[in-house]
């Protein structure tokens, strides 16, 4: 059975089901479709241009690479959470040592200034400690060009700090296929005010609040 919060994240469509299932069936079952206004806005903002540099922090996902490449852009992928766990272990408690944070970011975001025209953050930022998060956002500001758009997802339910960590696969400009990679603890709650403060150096922050306790955020550099 999916946890309640997971069901909420996926929307009402995840409710059908159960019984005993094989792992293959479970895998199939969790590949759920979700409309995304944030994704739609992201692609709307970069429409009509080819040859942009897009950074995807969700790791190498075939569908996303294919989709971005078909639009004529160059994609750079980083398995950000995977390497975050390797560097700090799971959980945000250990993500406080400034030297370790610096070393991690030097390894992960060591791109020249103003390299990217778009960044797919997905849900990666919500699992970082405030110190690591601030340093990461600072680096994102450095490596993005003015006018760059970033898409991030944040759990908007203040009651719990544990949320399903997702793998996001782009199906269409406004549709995602989601599968759960596990449950992770958020380092802090995120509301509009927190997020505006976090991205204060950026030009604008636009929110799409969905009914499934998910805040889709478009940040413009």
């Amino acid at each position: 059975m999916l946890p309640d919060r997971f069901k909420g994240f996926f929307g009402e469509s995840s409710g059908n089901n159960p019984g005993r299932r094989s792992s293959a069936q479970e895998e199939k079952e969790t590949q759920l479709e979700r409309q995304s206004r944030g994704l739609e806005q992201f692609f709307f903002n970069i429409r009509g241009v080819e040859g942009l540099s897009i950074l995807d922090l969700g790791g190498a996902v075939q569908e996303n690479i294919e989709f971005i490449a078909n639009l004529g852009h160059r994609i750079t992928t980083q398995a950000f959470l995977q390497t975050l766990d390797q560097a700090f272990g799971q959980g945000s408690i250990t993500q406080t040592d400034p030297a370790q944070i610096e070393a991690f970011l030097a390894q992960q975001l060591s791109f020249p200034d103003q390299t990217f025209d778009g960044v797919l953050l997905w849900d990666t930022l919500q699992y970082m400690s405030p110190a690591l998060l601030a340093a990461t956002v600072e680096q994102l500001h450095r490596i993005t060009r003015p006018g760059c758009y970033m898409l991030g997802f944040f759990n908007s339910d203040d009651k719990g700090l544990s949320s399903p960590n997702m793998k996001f696969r782009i199906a269409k400009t406004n549709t995602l296929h989601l599968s759960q990679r596990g449950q992770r603890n958020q380092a802090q709650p995120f509301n509009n005010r927190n997020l505006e403060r976090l991205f204060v150096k950026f030009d604008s922050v636009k929110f799409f609040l969905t009914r499934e306790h998910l805040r889709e955020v478009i940040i413009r550099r």
Partner: protein
Amino acid sequence: MDVKDVKKENILPVSSMPFKTATPESDAKGSGQASIGKAVKINGQIFSKEDLYIDGDVEGTVELHENRLTIGPNGRVQASVRAREVVVLGAIQGNVEASDRIDIRKEAKLVGDIKTARIVIEDGAYFKGSIDIVRQEAQKAGATAAPAHPAAAAAPKPVAAGAAVGSSPAVPVEVKR
């Protein structure tokens, strides 16, 4: 039933011949392609005019312009790689240019920039770097026509993916545009 009969019934018929599974290594031996075993370490440049299977350690450069390079599960390549087709089951650290396609299998690890016409990345593969999808027509045009500006030819502009890009996890699916 006497003792002899019981013994006979307990003996299961087995074949002394091991099953032959289609591993990349056996493929390599079967098709006559060159192979670098897992106990081999090479430091330098490799040029090949036949398919190559690397299951050992290679440091330097690997060039097989018209052929296929397979990095086996034990293969560790720290090199810039150029081939028609690249299949990765092990690890590569370096830039990879595959004029036809690159196939990164699960458990594989690739850190570097990729330039290719088609790419398949299985779920579970680790990839860090950028991907330039280069149209095959553009490659052919670049190969036949002399460029007005050599620098422009050296760095083709990334364009839309070619006719096909595979779909994960295991079965590549042609994508029609």
